[in-house]
């Protein structure tokens, strides 16, 4: 790669990716643009495997079950650079699809208008990057029936599941109508999680659910497809894994900024690899790298990278 290309990638959101973005947002893109898209995709997958990693790792299929669109890209004159960076990074790492949400964070009990606004940014990203960005619908259960209407609006627009954050513990009955709607629609709930052992962190998000909350909810609703989000998202991951041992219907995603050895090995040992879903939650190189260096069979690695999550997605159509 030339220095000029490197500069383009580093400063303008992606090597030949600028062309990709243009073609993606234009449904009548010229053939020349489509050629550029294909060139961009193939050139990034031609990047070297590097040292010490499995051969052909960039070409391995990967579905990132937990990611985010965090900017107001649905508004006029929006700055798309962060989403373009996200998609470009995924392309370079061989991540085929990013399953994104935009939760209202910090425990804010957002009004439904704010919730809709957040989801609109994900919908805009889905529209601009069809086939690459898919969406989870964030809902705030305290919005009551409006939250259920929002789920329907999101599903109608093509989203694949629901994202819950830390406004309520998942054992709170206020969450149950959302759960029942997800069961009815055969869609997964991806739940923010952490077992926080640091007083400052816990004080900042006291209603964050941990593994036992997920277990309790799953026990009440065994049909629910429930995903414990980011096992490496900052809480005690060993506690999270052990807490899920007796809850066979709860999946776990591997994302988070913590990259500790041997998280994946412990997940597989305690829960079996079928319950483990690859995800990055914006820690993209780290998220891919830890699956690559975990001691897994090829079959296990593929199941974690995509097949387990594909099974969840396939249940919607069943």
């Amino acid at each position, binding site marked *: 790669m030339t220095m000029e290309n490197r500069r383009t990638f580093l400063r303008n959101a992606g090597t030949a990716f600028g062309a990709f973005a243009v073609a993606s947002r234009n449904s009548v893109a010229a053939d020349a643009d489509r050629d550029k898209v294909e060139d961009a995709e193939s050139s990034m997958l031609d990047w070297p495997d590097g040292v010490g990693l499995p051969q052909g790792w960039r070409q391995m299929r990967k579905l990132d079950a937990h990611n985010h669109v965090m900017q107001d890209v649905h508004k006029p004159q929006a700055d798309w650079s962060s989403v373009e960076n996200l998609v470009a990074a995924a392309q370079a790492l061989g991540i085929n699809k990013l399953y994104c949400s935009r939760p209202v964070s910090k425990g804010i009990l957002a009004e439904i208008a704010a919730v809709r606004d957040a989801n609109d940014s994900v919908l805009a990203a889905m529209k601009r990057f069809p086939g690459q960005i898919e969406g989870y619908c964030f809902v705030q259960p305290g919005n009551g029936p409006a939250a259920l209407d929002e789920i329907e609006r999101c599903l109608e627009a093509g989203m694949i599941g629901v994202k819950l954050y830390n406004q309520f513990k998942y054992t709170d009955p206020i969450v149950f109508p959302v759960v029942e709607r997800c069961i009815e629609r055969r869609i997964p709930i991806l739940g923010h999680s952490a077992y926080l052992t640091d007083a400052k962190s816990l004080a900042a998000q006291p209603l964050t659910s941990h593994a036992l909350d997920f277990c309790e909810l799953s026990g009440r609703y065994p049909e629910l497809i429930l995903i414990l989000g980011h096992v490496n998202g*900052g809480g005690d991951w060993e506690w999270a894994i052990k807490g899920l041992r007796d809850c066979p219907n709860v999946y776990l995603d591997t994302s988070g900024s913590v990259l*500790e*050895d041997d998280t994946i090995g412990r997940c597989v040992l305690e829960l079996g690899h079928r319950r483990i879903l690859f995800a990055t939650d914006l820690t993209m190189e780290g998220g*891919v790298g830890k699956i690559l*260096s975990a001691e897994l069979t090829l079959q296990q690695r593929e199941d974690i990278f995509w097949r387990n999550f594909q099974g969840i997605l396939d249940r919607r159509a069943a």
Partner: protein
Amino acid sequence: MIIDVNTHLGHYPFRPVRFTSAARMIEHMDAHGIDMAVVSSLHAVFYRDSHRGNEELFQDVRQFPDRLIPVATVNPKYVGWERDLEESVRRWNAKGVTLLPEHHGYSLTGELGRAALGRIVDYDLPVVLTQRLEDRRQRHHWDVAEDLTTAQLTEVAAAHPKLRCLLSNWIGLNGAQLIAAGLRGRCLIDFARLDVLLNKAIPKLVDELRVESIAFGSHLPFDYLGPSLVKLANIAALFPAEDYEKIAWKNAAAFFRLEIAEGRTGRRKGGP
């Protein structure tokens, strides 16, 4: 060739780690294409007398003199630390010195910190400053160490203009602040917690501080090696070959003044 500038040997009190001995570390490095590693003792973090951890470390690494580069740990609150440092440097050829003010209970800018840093400068060795060993959101209730801050770092840099710093396991570094503190050209930043692609933290620091400021680091045995190997593979794709070589090993070799035997520097499969 790859030199990992961020590794430790020994046990950690709050969870098991898999690569505790030099032999296990070498085995793991071999499996992942790592040629050399800068290592310090985890025991030295937690023993009352850190130097006992140094003794174990130097004993353990001496069977791999061309693979493991030992760094001494000094606790300036402990009796006889100056003599212990002397022993680490003169007898065991320590290539750097780790200071852990949060774990050992002193300030880098206080009297003890200044004394230790001054002595490290006198030996013309780099100091290793690790921002954190693990994420505080998951810590054991006996683990009360806070992360080091950029403000502490820049204050130290200003107070010791000849001090060279390995910044290990840092995130959130601001190139402009480091330059203002006079750290350009005398700091080496381990990239274990920085990224190439999404936030472009590594390319930004390269632009601001020059490529000579960045080095491969993994934070073994705490973290997986894979994340850092993925980043290095992306650097191979995006950077000129000479910059890749600097980040992979040359910067570390220059910073720690290592003599790399001729014939060890060949490119492994997968490099640029």
